[in-house]
């Protein structure tokens, strides 16, 4: 029983960051229809930004986190303007190739700048864990959980409750109609990509100190983000959130009760099963036809 409770606590914490990764990608992949292979690189960009600002420049940890997210936002905007704007109207395969190129350049760039050896970031949180009964959890992970939940809430409100969110949804439903209604299409594309990127950077900056920061950290993150988005259904924020938690649960229980050797396979097994029965994912956004 204790073991199960500990697995569930682990799941909640891991799931919150998976959800963050998934939401960022669902905006870009699900709504914008850009197969963003560089999503994991924005995740590692966030982690390195935190390392640079927090460790090398010595800024306060919490301020450094915010700066890292803002930098991630700018990086996303830059990628959109430089790489994707000229591709507007090109088919999905072309932009996919461009994003694969971006991924390779970013990962090798990180390796060039920071070297291949992993970096670690220390935090102001106490090293002794919070112990409740027989369950224990580190303060840092608890903070990561709360911050991730807050960011998930903010994204939900942004997309569903603000004018910007409405314009975003309108643009990707029907670009021409939205444009005729006075929506600044170019800005919306850039903003959506930037928001998705900043969420990935936030996940990286939050998890960097929990784990270690290395140029390859984005590979697995990318893979998992795609899995979450497909599991949850393209374009659905709620779906990506639940998908994130589900993936974490599958991994945690799979490793705990089946075999730790196949931990990463568990998640993908679940996805295969879900797709067999519900090919559009668990919570697919209604497609507009035509």
């Amino acid at each position: 029983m204790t073991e199960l409770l500990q697995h569930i606590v682990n799941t909640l914490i891991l799931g919150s960051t998976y959800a963050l990764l998934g939401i960022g990608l669902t905006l870009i992949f699900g709504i914008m229809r850009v197969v963003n292979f560089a999503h994991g690189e924005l995740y590692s960009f966030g982690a390195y930004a935190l390392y640079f600002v927090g460790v090398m420049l010595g800024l306060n940890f919490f301020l450094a986190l915010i700066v890292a997210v803002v930098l991630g936002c700018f990086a996303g905007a830059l990628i959109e303007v430089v790489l994707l704007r000229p591709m507007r109207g090109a088919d999905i395969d072309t932009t996919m190739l461009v994003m694969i190129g971006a991924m390779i350049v970013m990962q090798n760039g990180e390796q060039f700048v920071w070297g291949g050896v992993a970096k670690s970031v220390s935090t102001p949180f106490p090293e002794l864990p919070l112990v409740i009964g027989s369950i224990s959890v580190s303060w840092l992970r608890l903070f990561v959980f709360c911050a991730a939940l807050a960011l998930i809430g903010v994204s939900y409100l942004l997309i569903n409750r603000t004018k910007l969110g409405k314009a975003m949804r309108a643009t990707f439903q029907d670009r021409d109609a939205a444009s005729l209604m006075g929506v600044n299409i170019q800005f919306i594309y850039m903003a959506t990509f930037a928001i998705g990127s900043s969420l990935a950077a936030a996940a990286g900056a939050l998890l960097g100190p929990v784990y270690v920061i290395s140029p390859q950290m984005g590979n697995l993150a990318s893979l998992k983000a795609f899995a979450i988005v497909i599991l949850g259904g393209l374009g659905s924020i709620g779906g990506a959130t639940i998908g994130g938690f589900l993936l974490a649960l599958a991994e945690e229980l799979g490793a705990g009760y089946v075999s730790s050797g196949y931990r990463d396979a568990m998640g993908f097994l679940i996805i295969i099963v879900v797709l067999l029965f519900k090919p559009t994912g668990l919570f697919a956004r209604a497609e507009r036809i035509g």
Partner: protein
Amino acid sequence: MKRAHGLITGAALAAAMSTALATGAAAQTIKIGVNEPLTGPFAASGTYVVNGAKIAADEINAKGGLLGRKIELLIEDNKSNPTEAAAVAEKLISGDKVPVIMGAWGSSLTLAVMPKLMEYKVPMVVETSSSSKITTSGNSYIFRISPPSSVEATEFKAIMPSLGIKKADFLVINNDWGRGSAEDFGKIMKAQNIQVGLVEIMDQAAQDMSAQLAKIKATDSDTIMVTTAVEQLTLVLKQAAALGITKRIVTTGGSQNPDQLIEQAGAAANGSMHLTTFAPWYPDKTPDPAATKYFLGEWKKRGYAIAGATESFRGYDGIRTIANAIQRAGKAEPAAITDALWTTDFPGLNGQIKFQKQGPTGKESGQSMPNLYLIKIENEKIILSGS
């Protein structure tokens, strides 16, 4: 006509130049291939080994080189990936024509390189890998200076009683190294009436081991035997502390870099014990104190973090082993170096380097037997607790 003439001149010129380049380079240096992980999950360890190798090369060259020529290290990154390790070996042997290689850090990486050595008949000094398979599979081009996990386990047997282990769980990296260690240590423990509980596996790129640790936390074992490299080990220690695990943690494999653990895991490293093959904190207790001090002095002078010394000494000894063999072989050719390696007998930083025969008769591999130390981290300090 004029055009054909130009072409021929061009081709002749190119041919002349390439011959000149080839002979020029051969006359200048003796090439030694170095096949190490400089990126990927083992980047820290591979980089330390390479830095140690560079110290050895510079030391040898400062003393006038070998056979009147300078040595040159051709360092290639195998990306912590067995496929890449084999490709790097191919490139070093057939492209750069190196007569000897040092590598490839991890057991799976080394095992991937081994068929290439057979194919081209080029010897390799294995500086880190510890899977027993490496020296028992019948590859006569393998000369290993690190202890296989079976030897590590046998030496650990002498230390075990003082620890009073009753039941142990294993948490090991999912490759030949980790699985091999779990098997070898498990065998020794069972023979000593120590119960072996769970054997949990972690992917080499995994960053979150909470699930495995939560499972281990719930068992009635008193000790966790962990086998992995320093990056993942740091995470294991931090995550074990976060889960409130108080069981004794003993690590194997010699790639723990205790100073780095203290620096990156902090208090979470306290109480953990590590089997290592070098004790740079106590140079006077090493087999060759003068050489140890020279090496540590150079390491410091180059501004490297002291944490790397427990790992990098293998790169240093590996290159010295190769240089020693080339010197005695009298020529930098694979067959002559292979023969000379068999008669190696010189003091390494961790004991005499001398190859014993292992594996099937007629195609034995060489295995040198280094010392083993058990160290403990207490209050973020390193204490020698057994050897």
